[in-house]
């Protein structure tokens, strides 16, 4: 029996390539995106028993029509319920023969917090940049175990570099091979985004704390001794960079209110609208 991850990954890559041929920009996000972004996370995720689900893409607003044509041409059937409910901000498809499910988000990842990706699609040929892949996990208020694993794997396989760093000091270069040569998580980019949004900052900080708490030997997200240490250091370095970043006036005003007011937007289970 074929490996479900391999099937999803090869289908995702084929779709991105087919889209590009038709002038449509598509990038893979989510767990398939993490595996496709570079080689290192895959084996770790396999070792942790991280299961395959579906393929998530992101598409620029102007390419929605072309994306739909292309996917329908490949045998995917659009979810009419979501089509009406989301009014062009999100699409869902299922393959009429093999049942493969695809979610397509438009320009941004809009869940507990919003991640604008429109201007960052050129950063990688197949997926969104590593920072957005990590943010996609850090924006979740109620992290599941798989979310925690995904975030931990990213930090265990990538160095985190703050703006003032001249190199990758502080990371354990022996723990895992860097994904793309020289690729690092740019803490400055994440810190700048979070310095404008108190709610996102608060959720991401809590999640980085969870990672530090659970990426330990015998913990929920034990990714291996050396990798645990690297993820721990990465999370700490990222948190330090986030804390150092000067905050906007709106951030500071919202900080005074704190947790007294809900700081995330509600994300419901995906049930039918009609």
């Amino acid at each position, binding site marked *: 029996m074929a490996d479900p991850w391999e099937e999803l990954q090869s289908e995702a890559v084929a779709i991105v390539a087919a889209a590009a041929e038709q002038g449509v920009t598509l990038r893979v996000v989510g767990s398939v995106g993490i595996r496709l972004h570079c080689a290192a996370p895959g084996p770790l995720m396999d070792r942790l028993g991280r299961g395959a689900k579906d393929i998530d893409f992101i598409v620029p607003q102007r390419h929605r029509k072309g994306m739909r044509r292309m996917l329908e041409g490949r045998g995917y059937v659009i979810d009419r319920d979501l089509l*009406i*409910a*989301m009014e062009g901000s999100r699409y869902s498809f299922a393959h009429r023969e093999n049942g493969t*499910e695809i979610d397509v988000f438009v320009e941004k990842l809009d869940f507990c917090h919003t991640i604008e990706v429109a201007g960052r699609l050129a950063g990688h040929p197949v997926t969104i940049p590593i920072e957005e892949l990590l943010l996609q996990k850090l924006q979740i208020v109620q992290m599941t175990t798989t979310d*925690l694993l995904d975030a931990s794997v990213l930090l265990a396989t990538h160095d985190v570099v703050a703006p003032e760093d001249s190199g990758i000091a502080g990371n354990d270069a022996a723990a895992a091979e860097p994904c793309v040569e020289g690729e690092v998580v740019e803490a400055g980019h994440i810190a700048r985004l979070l310095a404008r949004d108190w709610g996102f900052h608060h959720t991401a900080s809590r999640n980085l704390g969870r990672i530090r708490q659970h990426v330990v030997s015998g913990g929920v997200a*034990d990714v291996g001794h050396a990798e645990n240490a690297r993820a721990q250091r990465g999370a700490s370095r990222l948190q330090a960079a986030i804390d150092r970043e000067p905050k906007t006036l709106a951030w500071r005003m919202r900080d005074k209110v704190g947790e007294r007011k809900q700081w995330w937007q509600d994300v419901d289970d995906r049930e039918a609208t*009609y």
Partner: protein
Amino acid sequence: MAESLASEAVAPGVFSRKSSGLVRVGSTLDVFIFNVGLVSVGIAIAYNQYYGPSLYPGAQPWLSTLLAAAGMIFVAAAFYCWSVVFPRSGGVYVFLSRTINPGVAFVMSLIETIILLYYAALAAGLIVQVGLASFFGAVGTVAKNSTLVSWGTSVAKPAGVFWIGTLIIVMAGTLLISGTRRYFTVQRVLFVVAVAGLAVIAVVMLVGSRSGFSANLTSLTGLHYNQVISTAEKHGYAPAGTSFGESWKFIIWPLLPLLGAVQSVGIGGEVKKVRRSQLLGMLGAVVATGVVIALFALLSNKDFGYTFQGAVSYNALSGVPGGTTATAPWFAVLAGLLGHNVFLSVVILATFAAWIWFWIPAEMAYTTRSMIAWSFDRVAPNRLGFVSETVHTPVVAIGISTGGAVVFMWLIAFKAVTFLTFIEVLLVVWGAVMVAAVLFPFTRKAMYDASPARNFKLAGIPIMPAAGAIATVFFAVMFWLLWKDPIAAGPLIHPSKMPVEAWITLGALIVGTAWYIGAKRYRRRQGIDISLAFQQIPIE
């Protein structure tokens, strides 16, 4: 349900969501505004103060409003239970099709759709008659500008009502086509404007006095306060002291707007945190609007005087010359005179126009959801759920809603359809939903037991069937009051002269039944068993 790390004393493994979650469009505030807008405080105050003291002497609109709101609490409770059992868009069609009978549900929903489109058109007409005509009339009077006053009378004529009303309906359709998110945003902005305007009016009325109003009336219109009353009396108006009996009879007037407080059942699938949103949205709307409308009735009595309101409206309704204002003396006109200030008059009338506007896109939005639900169940053509790739909204359903409302606009403007008779039909449709709420725990026990509604109890009594039973009785009494009241509605079925509403309802009944039977057969020939759709149990 996704497992969170709050209960994470678990071994590493796959504890994931079934799929990426969904950020629904409607917040609790949006639901509240949707319902409050559908009550339309503006329409309620206008009707109460115009028709209450004049046609039901002794009826106190504040009391009638509170009585109607008390009954509506049970209706809201029953609808709330339905909305958490079936958190879907499509309104009564969803509830009835999954619990009673799909054919009955479709026919009821079709009739409901027609009625709601009628009321969308009625609101557009009211914007012209109560809003625009009053606006020109009051501002013209206060500014002593005869051109504006003449515009006030011109726009209220049938052609003016039809064309301007149609333009307003098309604007509402265009807003819906631009997307639900934008619609909710516009609604929020207008809500702030409408509430702020209402606060200004309340302040004006609180600091105002009857002597001040009387003086302004004379200086601005040439009418004398006591003369207006005596003229009305000479022409048959009989003032009376407060009467509970008349207030009870008048209850059907404030009921019409208050029925809107539960219509978020139509957008249930688009609402975040459905339990909280629908609870605060429905019950909050009934209570908040009931109190506000009653409060303005009391303020009107304080500043304008109960008898004067009855007399000036009576004179207008009876066409008594020299006994009323140049434009019909709706509440907004009287409040404008009280303010005696052009700017205040503009604020007052813009506020009323904003309140009335809420009805139009909201009623149309409800009907589009019903149509899409029919389409998804394959009872109606797939085309009804067609989504434009340019604007990304269901343009066919919205287009049909807009067209239907324009047809009613024509009927209202040129055929003067009696507007409360349709409420009798709506009470039958919604009454069926209330009866279904009583039966649901028994006829669909497994479904009820698996739903959150099972746990809704008050002093050990299950709320859904209890509220459904009380609401059924309430609707039955309201139906009887409407049937017996020739001023508001009168009998829907009249052997000597069947009203237009009766023919429309009968037509919808026959066409709807034939359509459903035809659709079922047609789909069967396509190899599709549409009854399977009704077995889906969308329980939270």
